[in-house]
């Protein structure tokens, strides 16, 4: 958007109520795209998690990925082959 577009037009702002366009957060240059701030929790010993004030749930997928047990491998198969 350049000077002269609607955002710089006073009349436009008088009626502009809902913000639906991009905001500054969309331009974050994050050193930590991997959410390492979650690392201090011992997730191996964790099942029930409360994300208080979760908003739209930015952390849900990252927490779930840490909670999910590794893929199931059948003990019976290895026992029977022993």
């Amino acid at each position, binding site marked *: 958007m350049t000077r002269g577009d609607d*955002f710089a037009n006073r009349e436009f702002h008088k009626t502009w109520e809902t913000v639906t366009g991009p905001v500054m957060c969309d*331009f*974050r*240059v994050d050193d*930590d795209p991997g959410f390492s701030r979650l690392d*201090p929790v011992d997730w191996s010993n964790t099942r029930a998690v409360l994300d208080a*004030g979760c908003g739209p749930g930015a952390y849900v997928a990252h927490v779930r990925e840490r909670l999910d047990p590794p893929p199931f491998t059948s003990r019976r198969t290895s026992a029977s082959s022993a």
Partner: protein
Amino acid sequence: MAVPVCVDVAALPFAEGAFDAVMAMHMLYHVEDIPAGVRELRRVLRDDGTLLVSTNSVTSEREFMDLLMACGLKELPVQDARFSSENGGELLAEAFTDVRFFEERSKFVVPDPGPVVNTVQSMRYSLEAHLASSVTWEDFLFRVADAAQDVVDRHGALVTQSLSGVFVCR
């Protein structure tokens, strides 16, 4: 399975020790009674569980705040300062014995004034009351649009440092 529940953090409908881990990310500064919220987070957490709390520093996004001050904001809104990197540890120590802080830095590189104006518009609830008396909200937005355009013209982008951090509480 994630189950959304809409309640006040200061009155959680969960049993003592119901959770193995609790998170309160960038939210405690919104809460009316912060000490009550912290007590509730402790109560619903397992005795040896971990609470993670993220928040901003009061010096975060200084370049953006300076731009707003130059456009007619007479003082910074206090909302984030209610629970910040600076004072959060003290508030958490009321309910947790071991509170450690890990600082995080990132930045916003905004190549267009549109998102700057959108952000200001989305903060109207907290900014409008802090405008100089001669400046209307519409004047303010107009000035911000102009100032952001100037920065983008001169530097290619508005760059502002974000300072935040995580408290790990046990």
